[in-house]
């Protein structure tokens, strides 16, 4: 398999940022919407 763009450090850094942002934001939003709808005491 050809190496391609994956060798470039900035492309890897961008992808790393993207994966981290998407994953963390997804779970942060999920947690906040679930918490917001929990019944209050």
């Amino acid at each position, binding site marked *: 398999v*050809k190496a391609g763009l994956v060798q470039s*450090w900035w492309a890897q850094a961008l992808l790393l940022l993207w994966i981290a942002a*998407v*994953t963390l934001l*997804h779970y942060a*939003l999920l947690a906040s919407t679930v918490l917001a709808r929990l019944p209050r005491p």
Partner: protein
Amino acid sequence: LLAIVIVAAVAAAACAFGMRLLRPAPALQFASLLERATFAAALGLGVIAYLILAVGLARALYWWVIVIIVAVLAAIAYRELGQLLAGIARGLRSFFTSRSTLGGAVVGIFLLLMIALAILGALAPSSQNDWDALSYHLAVPKIYLHAHGIAYIGWLSHSNFPFSTEMWYVMGLAFQGQAAAKLFHTLCAILTVLAMLAFGAAHWERRHGALAALVFLAAPAVAWEATSALNDLAAGLFTLLSLCAFINWWSRRGARWAVVAAVLCGFAVGVKMNALALSGFLVVASFYHVAATERTGPASALRAAATFAVIALLVASPWYIKSYVWTSNPVYPFFYHLFDGKYWTAEAARLYRAEQLGFGMGRSPLALLLAPWNLTMHGHRFSNFPNQPLAYVSVAPLLLALLPGLLLLGKLDRRVKFLLIYSLVAFIAWFYLSQHMRYLIPALPGLALCAGFAGSEVLRRAGKELRVGAIAALALTCLVSLGIFAILVGVSAPAAVGAESEAAYLTDGLDGLYLMAQVVNALPHGSKVIMYGETRGFYFDTPYMWGDHHHNMIRYDRLADAAQLIAAYRRLGLTHLLMTQSFMEDVERRGGKLEILLADAIAQHRLVIVATCGNDILLRIAEPRA
């Protein structure tokens, strides 16, 4: 346990029969027994669905007839059954004895745990998370079984959808009950995972397929569906295998693969109308493939595309012909302005379309561009009940996180390109037809294969930091998805294993509907109930019909007063009404024509409340005064 044994036995018979149909030939080569078995199982299950449809239409829908069907298929393929069982034993032995990398072992354990939870979830009775299953996916098969045949149901528009999956539910209900029925949908998830593993191993490496399977099952929406008697995972299985067969056609140069792809595409269209987009895509793709590779002129390419279309549509056609004959609309109740349709009106079509368009976050070009992001971040907006817990059952972040990895891989694998183009077509169709997350599930397996490929290649080729980041995202997603699924299944687990009675579980879960079903089932013989604000009739043994919006067997707009309403009820043999509290509030507010008629009927004591259970009220249609 009986349910698991029954579904395993049917799956084995279906697989063996499919293996007989798919005997290896020069034009049909398989990379592994697993690959042959997954194609065969889907093919065999598809054949069983149509045989049950046939006996249903012949009014011979008895459990013993279905036993004979399955037994005959198994007997025809007794040699293949032996090969299959020996292959499974060999596969299990090598699975438990072969050494695996740590990553491989973790992925394997995750997949096994998710599948085990899905099976446990499927064993529980359908409850609050299974609205559509209780309304028609299971309810219609129960009505068919009770009548020992498949006949037109005028008050239930959904019964005219293509219903291949529901034929397996007929079988499950006939053999055991709803647990066996639901397990057929779980089986679709399992076969999809196996098909991904087989495809990965055949075309790339095992780890690509394994990561794809992880991406697929880590979507809580997929996991939840695997516990419920819906049909999206069946459509997903046939869609994936059809795409895989198509890829095998051009990568292995085996002409019979095109036939397999067309038949499986037809089965997908026989499960869900949305798969018509798949058939359109594959017809165009077959034209393009033949035109690009054979260089024999456009005539042969046209012939190939036409042959593909004819096979796929022929396979799917029984459902659409049935609908056409019974309602004059092959895609009833959709496209009312083109086809009309029995017991349907422009107003019903408008209401239904408005409901379908109500999901999602808009249809502008910008919304289309943002849809993958919105779907991942605001998944609850793409569901029926954005405020209920089930709405937070999402597609998980892995697809959106991993797919851009493809941009870093240089020249793209053409199988990935093909799957991506299909996913784009399916996504655009989904975007403009109805943006319900569930309707996207049939396209997810193909997209998961792309994400699995991207993830695996990134993990193999990237620097340490990116690898660690990707593994952390995978691990976090696996843990959260497993946690969400364990909580979801945990609620029903006591009922699934018999530690809690079905009655106690459903009384708690269905907010009075189960208790009301017991009241209705105790009504005198000859009773018949019409339901308002409620469609979930699966637990009713007494005959019933839906009352609002889904048919016009009663033209409320043409009734002048309450007396005419009661007369219309009597003409249909109705003796009772069931309505939800919120519908009753509409009646008290006199919110529309029907509500005014009902309010007048109650005020005139033509309708009398006889029972209230939780959210449901039962009214009796009073006898006419002498």
